[in-house]
């Protein structure tokens, strides 16, 4: 069953040779599937063992890595699968983060409940933003979403909302402890790590199934050839807006988790730089290849630190250098590089 699904996915994007996006996830031959599963199991075991080996700081970094990976996954669904651009995903991240902060600190609601609320809210916001954005293509859409990213921190500072958002001062969140007596075994950092891991796995499963579903095929058909998709009877408007909504939902949930992990939200946390970071992570990980989100997130979490260690004054320059090097060596991101390697080995 899973096999036939994958073949169909492959067929859908493989049929459009002119597509700018690599038909990466389509390179799913039978052998690679088992290899992929083996890699997944090893990664999962590693991920489960990690909090018991490393210090809290590393656990925290890994948690943030997963948070960014979820955000990138969201953008990947929009850009990689549906072919729409967004420079404004930092805005959805911010909406998710503020939802968590306001619910937890102002309303005293448990953090677990903030996730579905943030998800639904961001879906609605994303869907509504997606509707007018339907008229915009390519760089024009990028520009519209850019405006969204720039406007968001300003809205968060506005006086009428200050009672809720805390204005420039932001909101400090109390870190949740592990529930059900688990706090005897796990400290707060370890618990949040496992919590994020569970949410991340669930969302990844959701994204994977979405891509392999009828809806996913429609989304990719729109990306590859919108006119053909429309003539096949795909309601492009509805699908594109839905893609925006789902993408925003993923990123919003990431923001929600991020706020709980960082324990603080403020307008300065969600500047345009965040949107760019998510986009960078997407491109580094591989546009259209879902597991690439993890690699992209690793890049945006670790490479700035590495660059800073090389030279404080030129940290930005070194970051840029790494970025260019990766794009040059792996023009299709980590996903493309891996596929090329696998193809070479398999020959």
């Amino acid at each position, binding site marked *: 069953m899973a096999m036939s699904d994958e073949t169909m996915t492959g067929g859908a994007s493989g049929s459009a040779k002119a597509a700018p996006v690599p038909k990466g996830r389509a390179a799913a031959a039978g052998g690679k599937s088992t290899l992929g599963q083996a890699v997944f199991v090893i990664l999962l075991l590693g991920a489960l063992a990690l909090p018991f080996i490393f*210090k809290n*700081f590393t656990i925290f*970094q890994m948690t943030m890595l997963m948070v960014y990976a979820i955000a990138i996954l969201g953008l990947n669904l929009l850009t990689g699968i549906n072919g729409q651009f967004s420079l404004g995903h930092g805005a959805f991240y911010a909406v998710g983060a503020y939802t968590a902060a306001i619910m937890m600190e102002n309303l005293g609601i448990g953090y677990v409940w903030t996730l579905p609320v943030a998800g639904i809210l961001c879906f609605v916001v994303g869907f509504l933003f997606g509707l007018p954005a339907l008229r915009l293509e390519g760089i024009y859409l990028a520009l519209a979403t850019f405006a969204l990213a720039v406007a968001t921190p300003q809205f968060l500072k506005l006086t009428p909302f200050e009672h809720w958002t805390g204005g420039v001062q932001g909101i400090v969140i109390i870190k949740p402890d592990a529930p059900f007596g688990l706090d005897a075994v796990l400290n707060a950092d370890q618990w949040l790590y496992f919590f994020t891991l569970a949410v991340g796995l669930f969302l990844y499963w959701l994204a994977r199934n979405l891509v392999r579903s009828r809806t996913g095929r429609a989304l990719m058909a729109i990306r590859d050839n919108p006119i053909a998709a429309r003539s096949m009877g795909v309601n492009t408007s509805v699908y594109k807006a839905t893609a925006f909504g789902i993408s925003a939902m993923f990123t919003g949930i990431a923001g929600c988790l991020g706020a709980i992990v960082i324990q603080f939200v403020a307008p300065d946390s969600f500047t345009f*730089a965040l949107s760019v970071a998510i986009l960078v992570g997407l491109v580094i990980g591989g546009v259209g290849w879902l597991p690439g989100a993890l690699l992209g997130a690793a890049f945006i979490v670790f490479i700035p630190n590495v660059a800073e*260690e090389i030279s404080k004054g030129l940290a930005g320059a070194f970051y840029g250098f790494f970025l260019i090097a990766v794009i040059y060596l792996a023009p299709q991101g980590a996903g493309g590089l891996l596929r090329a390697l696998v193809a070479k080995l398999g020959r």
Partner: protein
Amino acid sequence: MLNRRTLLGAGAAALAAAGIPAAALAADDVIKVGNTMAYSGPASAYGQIGSTIGAYIEMVNAQGGVNGRKIEWISYDDGYSPPKTVEQIRRLVEQDEVDLLHATLGTPTNTAIHKYVNAKKVPHLFVATGASKWNDPENFPWTSGWQPNYPTEGAIYAQWILANIENPKIAVLYQNDDYGKDYLTGLKRGLAGREDVIVAEAPYEVAQPTVDSEVINLKASGANVFFIVATPKFAAQAIKKSAEIGWEAERFLNNVSISVGSVLQPAGLEASKGLISAGYLMEVDDPQWADHEEVAEWRRFMNEWYPAGDQTSSFTVYGYASAYTLVETLKRCGDDFSRENIVRQAASLKGLRAPLLLPGITINTSATDHAPIEAMQLMRFNGESWERFGEVVHAESS
């Protein structure tokens, strides 16, 4: 996924597992001082504060260190982004295992780590921000401010107004955020029961293009005192407009915007004449300090240890005085560099004179007062430079 940091982490974990005490605080002969600073991003001009402190510590180490120990200055870039600050501070505390944090920059960034460092009981000293919340030893005993905070400055103006202006009627223009409201709070506190003399308040938003209409409305209130709580761009507009419309009020300008080059010149030096403000650090460009011993010492330091630094910038002055405060605090720790003792010493500075503070201003702290500098001196702009007048005004909170 495999990268330097995880390898380092793995190494550290292996060491810890091997039974070597990871938290060997103050057991070795290096005092680790952590810091986050904006070396990149929109606030990167502040980065000079961190570089100056780093250079100062290098000098102290070259001269033999503090009580026989070297100081290690670990300063990371947070780009003025609170989530990055949290990450970098956790790296400093949990991985680098710093003994204390010094002069971490920014109000939102320090807010993000405020609870964390206090829960971890890490000294969070002499933060580089003017908000008032760092002086809260009851709830945050590990945190301490440094520079005079905004309410203190507001209170100093209020005291002077009550003492020197007959029948004052105050109009306030303020930026509608924490910074602006902090000043307003301080002003009201200084008025102590005579808040009714404030006849008009006009907030402005940072997104506004100008504050001209606010200034005109404030004049219409008939006030004879105009208090400008604004960041440089808006301060320049307010100064210019109030002069243009011939509003003959005593005008007060907050310390944030006293730069002659970037505020008063754009506003017009003639229009700026007569402005009153308050300062606590020497303006090193001011001819009256040219021959001052501390300024000469600072110039020697800058030339030798930080030649790339900007000698006209107030940030290098700030960094120098801040670093001096840190080193002096560490000297007083004697041989006990435990975190408890570091905070205890930081909270028992009495009459400490940091170089480049205005004459007569000293640093005073206690277990219930974590606001080191709480005195300023008023000064009036004479059309060319700031002329100090009157005594140093103390607004010590306790």
